[in-house]
């Protein structure tokens, strides 16, 4: 597949990070312990806030 071969590694990395971010994962395994916890914690928190938004929106749109 030529598309894959010509896509710069930096773009692939960026995309991977965006996807991981959306999924609440943390790809950056080189972070020291303790920092990793806080970054993952922030992603979990973010996901939980999204969940609240979805449920609130559902109630709002319910007629």
């Amino acid at each position: 597949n030529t598309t894959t071969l010509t896509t710069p590694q930096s773009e692939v990395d960026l995309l991977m990070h965006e996807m991981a971010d959306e999924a609440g994962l943390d790809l950056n395994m080189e972070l020291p312990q303790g920092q990793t916890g806080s970054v993952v914690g922030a992603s979990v928190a973010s996901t939980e806030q999204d969940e609240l938004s979805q449920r609130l929106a559902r109630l709002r749109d319910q007629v």
Partner: protein
Amino acid sequence: KPEDRSCKEHDDISEQIRNHHKQAFEYISVALKIDEDDKGPKEQAVQWYKKGIAELEKGIAIEVTGNGEKADKSRRLQDKMKTNLLMSKDRLDLLVTGAVPKKRET
């Protein structure tokens, strides 16, 4: 080392924000569980929404300074909390004024 210090400070700040988030998430989850049930006691949902809103406000009031991935994440979390603050307040207003549409025909 100044860098370590700001990093440590930010850890504290992000932890405070996450604590308020966590509390707000628990309260609003309870409110939603009651509210999503047609027969749920809405006056109880009102109380839980109020508690959740207070926690969201505390978390949003914390000032996040500096840049970097962690500060950005904290700010993004605060943005989401702001969205939920507005949505919770709107829902609370509806419940308090009794303007919640009833599904059943009377």
